[in-house]
């Protein structure tokens, strides 16, 4: 007798990736030999001390359990359930999380499925293997300047500046940008998740020759170890990265000439209005575009310190992963996932309607370049095409709206789940 589990509606290995947000799964008897009738099974983590861990739900919303008992029809009809990564127990390698199907009749396993609890982590704490997989995927995407990375570089230039900055859509646009890049990295290596540079803390493991490199003291050219594939990084036809920190990367957080980036708790406080009592609102929170976001950028000299050239440096994406994480954590802390309320996002509606702003920055607007719109006021070309698809979720679709970035975990609407999570931002069901 054998049983098997499928995830995300797909039986292939490519779908066996979960985050903290619950995903639909199915279990069925694939070989009912010996089954006299319905078979009682228990799903559990095969090894509670090693690898990624998952939790189980019989229905949503519901309480997570360390295991789940189900009854399987002998004819092989699948039974639906849900599972998610256990918060703070992510995988460190592909397939290191194993769900075991145990027959309760004899307490024997009748099936095991490997998956990965794939989470965006603090880059400073990655294992060597995680780091190397990320660097390899990045280098292959870049392909010495000839790869698909060129599109990501070409998106984030002066031409695209008004689509991505200076307005309400700054956080969602960059969330979409990172998501697109991450999905492209995952096409190369599905075990890769984009890590973040936690810039309000020292990150000594990040700024080494084996990772994001160290600067040549006289030229600022970033030097890499002989085994680091980023040494072949090229953009705009020229190899190399120029980046020199204004702070001690081994002992300090990102610090510009007007001081360090504000801390994570201080960043959350930006969201408070001046009313009495104060409330957290999106339009206040997005002041973080200045400090810590802008401050982190200008805590270096070199490409990353300027919009026109920032995306030439792979560090840009780790920097912005942290910017996105801060928004995600603020959302979770203040339960700001409802894209129809101004506390979660504003302005609401589509460009042109009352109270809205420039197109591309309102909740119902689609976002360039994924919408492939190139008529003014949008830029003249749209590099890279539509949003990369995912086997794990249909969201946000090929042409995402600003609003589709808000409920990224599917807290309010499961179908909104975008398929990524941060290691320190859990999933919680709505409190109402």
């Amino acid at each position, binding site marked *: 007798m054998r049983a098997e589990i499928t995830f995300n509606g797909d039986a292939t290995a490519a779908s066996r990736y979960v985050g903290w947000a619950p995903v639909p799964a199915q279990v069925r008897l694939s070989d009912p030999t010996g089954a006299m009738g319905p078979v009682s099974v228990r799903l559990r983590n095969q090894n509670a001390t090693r690898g990624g861990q998952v939790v189980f739900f019989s229905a949503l919303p519901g309480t997570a359990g360390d295991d789940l008992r189900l009854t399987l029809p002998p004819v092989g009809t699948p039974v639906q359930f849900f599972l998610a990564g256990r918060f703070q127990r992510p995988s460190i390698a592909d397939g290191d999380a194993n769900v075991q199907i145990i027959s309760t009749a004899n307490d024997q396993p009748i099936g095991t499925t490997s998956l990965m609890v794939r989470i965006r982590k603090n880059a400073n704490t990655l294992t060597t293997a995680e780091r190397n997989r990320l660097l390899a995927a990045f280098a292959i995407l870049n392909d010495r300047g*000839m*790869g*698909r990375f*060129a*599109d990501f570089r*070409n998106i984030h*230039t*002066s*031409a695209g*500046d*008004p689509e991505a900055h*200076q307005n309400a859509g700054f956080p969602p646009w960059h969330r979409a940008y990172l998501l697109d890049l991450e999905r492209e990295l995952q096409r190369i290596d599905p075990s890769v998740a984009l890590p973040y540079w936690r810039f309000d803390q020292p990150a000594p493991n990040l700024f080494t020759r084996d990772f994001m490199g160290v600067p040549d003291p006289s030229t600022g050219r970033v030097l890499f170890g002989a085994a680091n594939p980023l040494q072949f990084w090229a953009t*705009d*036809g020229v190899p190399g990265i120029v980046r020199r920190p204004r702070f001690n990367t081994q002992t300090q957080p990102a610090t510009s000439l007007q001081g360090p980036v504000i801390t994570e708790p201080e960043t959350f406080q930006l969201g408070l209005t001046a009313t009495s009592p104060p409330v957290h609102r999106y339009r206040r929170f997005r002041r973080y575009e200045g400090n810590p976001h802008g401050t982190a950028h200008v805590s270096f000299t070199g490409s990353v310190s300027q919009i026109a050239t920032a995306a030439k440096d792979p560090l840009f994406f780790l920097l912005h992963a942290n910017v996105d994480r801060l928004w995600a954590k603020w959302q979770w802390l203040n339960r700001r996932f409802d894209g129809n309320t101004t506390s979660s996002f504003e302005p609401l509606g589509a460009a042109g309607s009352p109270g809205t702003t*420039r197109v591309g920055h309102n909740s119902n607007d689609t976002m360039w370049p994924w919408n492939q719109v*190139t008529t*003014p*006021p949008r*830029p*003249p*070309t*749209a*590099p*890279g*095409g539509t949003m990369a698809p995912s086997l794990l979720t249909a969201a946000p679709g090929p042409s995402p709206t600003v609003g589709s970035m808000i409920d990224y975990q599917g807290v309010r609407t499961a179908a909104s789940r975008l398929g990524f999570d941060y290691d320190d931002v859990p999933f919680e069901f709505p409190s109402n």
Partner: protein
Amino acid sequence: METRESAQRLDHETSEQEFAEFVDRARRELDSQRLVELLPERTPVYQRRSANTVNRMRGYLLAAFEAAGLPEEALPYVLEELESGRNAYLVAAAARALRGRESRSSDAVPFLLRAIENIKYADDAVSFDSYRPSWPAPRHATALQEIADTFAWLGSEASSARPVLQSLLEEPGVLSESARAKLESVVSEPSVGGSRRAVRASSPCCAHHAESARPDIHQVRTRTEVPASVELEDQDGTRVKFGEFFTSKPSVVAFFYTRCDNPNKCSLTITKLGRFQRRLADLGLDGRIQTAAITYDPEFDLPARLRAYGENRGVVFSPSDRLFRTKGALAPLEGYFELGVSFGATLVNQHRIELFLLDQQAQVVSALTRLQWDIEEVLAQAARLAEPDDSPPQ
């Protein structure tokens, strides 16, 4: 008898100072024809210089038309910068040049509005007081200010721009105070205008331009000998002779290079080529019309670069749809197509947008150059080429 100074004596060894003095003299003497001679990209004076040097030279040249007068043959160059330029100095110069026209005409309005879109987030401080101003400059303008000045000069001819200018005025943080003030006066009092030169109202000679939305950019070439033996290599590394590929079917061929840094030019051209391919397929013409693009930068644009560039812009490849580089010099094609391109020591330093329609004998039957070509317009022309030829044999 005084010999009129000719631009033909200027070449790549001419110093920039000499060039500037030539332009200054022509401007003072109101000799716009001398300036017109310097407009074509292939003029020797632009060879072997950096792109920024050429931009400065051309910008200084365009700005001089304000005083010297802007002849109609110079107009496409001005409109090109307004429509597709992203360099504030050149855009400012082009806006200035328009004020040298004999008559004010609303046909320039769409181009000025397009220039605003191109430059409003990348405006810069510019000065035409001298060829090489030093900074801090005693005074400077910006591209948006120059565009605003030209709208003010157009007066009532700019009335169609009022709604767009009004929404620009409502967009926060884009306009400097001086540009805002000028545009506010345009929007509120469209009859405001002034000129440093005596301006005639629209005269019979220029009336047809006032009626047309844009100049005719289609040029029909005379038949010339096909460079059949030029070897091409495509995005897969497959080699074919020019004559072999371009005499199999009618073709649409563009020129580009992957290191072009103006998204309104090569990137947009290849993106449009991809869209054109899809329209051909919609109409069932994809088997009957070939599409191709040839790089100006054959040594750098290796096959892998060509493929990546095309794929990333939606181009679909097939035996009839390819991106090429020449295996060898580009010169034979430069001559055959009369390309509008010039080169620094190693790299393109300026080029125009150019798209050609070739018949089945590889003869250029239509050249759409300088201004943005319209996909549907090209489709119509290509469809006619693809029709069976019922004319009696020669």
